[in-house]
């Protein structure tokens, strides 16, 4: 009581320095722990085969053999032809695309085919592996 009376009221404040230290450490921890994962990517969606009754039509199939080519109905085509093929079949029905890959095909090419198919308006894109 005597001490409080003898000093200014400002001097009776709580010492906040340890609080600030602690808060700064927490702040730095959360800044460092926040991982800024900003991925862009494609999401190949394919319809659930059990529920889709309209899925009777044959999907557009593209084959990727181990030779690194892109084959549609037995004919080797270029990557830039995928989108027009998908788009030209969009007229009557929403196309679903099947990309059949053989062991040895590049994942980069398979991703580009799926990307081009989605560019062409494909609603469902499925990647399936052929066992040889």
């Amino acid at each position, binding site marked *: 009581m005597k001490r409080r009376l003898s000093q200014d009221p400002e001097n009776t404040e709580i010492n906040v320095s340890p609080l600030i230290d602690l808060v700064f450490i927490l702040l730095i921890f959360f800044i460092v722990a926040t*991982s800024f*994962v900003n991925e862009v*990517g494609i999401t190949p969606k394919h319809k659930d085969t059990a529920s889709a009754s309209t899925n009777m039509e044959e999907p557009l199939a593209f084959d990727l053999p181990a030779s690194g080519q892109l084959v549609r109905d037995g004919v080797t085509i270029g990557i830039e032809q995928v989108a027009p093929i998908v788009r030209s079949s969009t007229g009557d029905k929403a196309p679903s695309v099947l990309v059949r890959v053989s062991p040895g095909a*590049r994942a*980069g090419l398979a991703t580009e085919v799926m*990307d081009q198919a989605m560019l062409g308006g494909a609603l469902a894109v499925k*990647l399936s592996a052929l066992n040889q």
Partner: protein
Amino acid sequence: MTGSDTNDINVSPLIDVVFILLIFFIVSATFVTLPGIEVARPRAVTGKALEKNAVIFALSSDNEIKYAGSTVQLEEVPGLVQLASKDKGKPVVIQVDQWADASVLAKLIAEARKKSSDVSIATRKPSA
């Protein structure tokens, strides 16, 4: 000028700002587990921004599946997805190297799809 103690800078606004920053970082922190390798992503023009809070797998150029810094087998993938997503249905992101085997990628997507309905392939912009 009643004493040297009263000449302190007023730290209350500083504490306010620091607290606001702290709360921002706590709220925005989404502790994702990174696969631990860097891959050469394939280019895609239709790539969209993916969910940040995802279960991330990587497929290296020598066809190894990486998760949280270690190599995992294909059969372990559904269990890891379920464990990491804690029944909240987190999406799965696969960082695939463009020189990886596409059949391994297809199998990895099929395995991940058993436990998550949203499986994406990480790509990069065509210009990058």
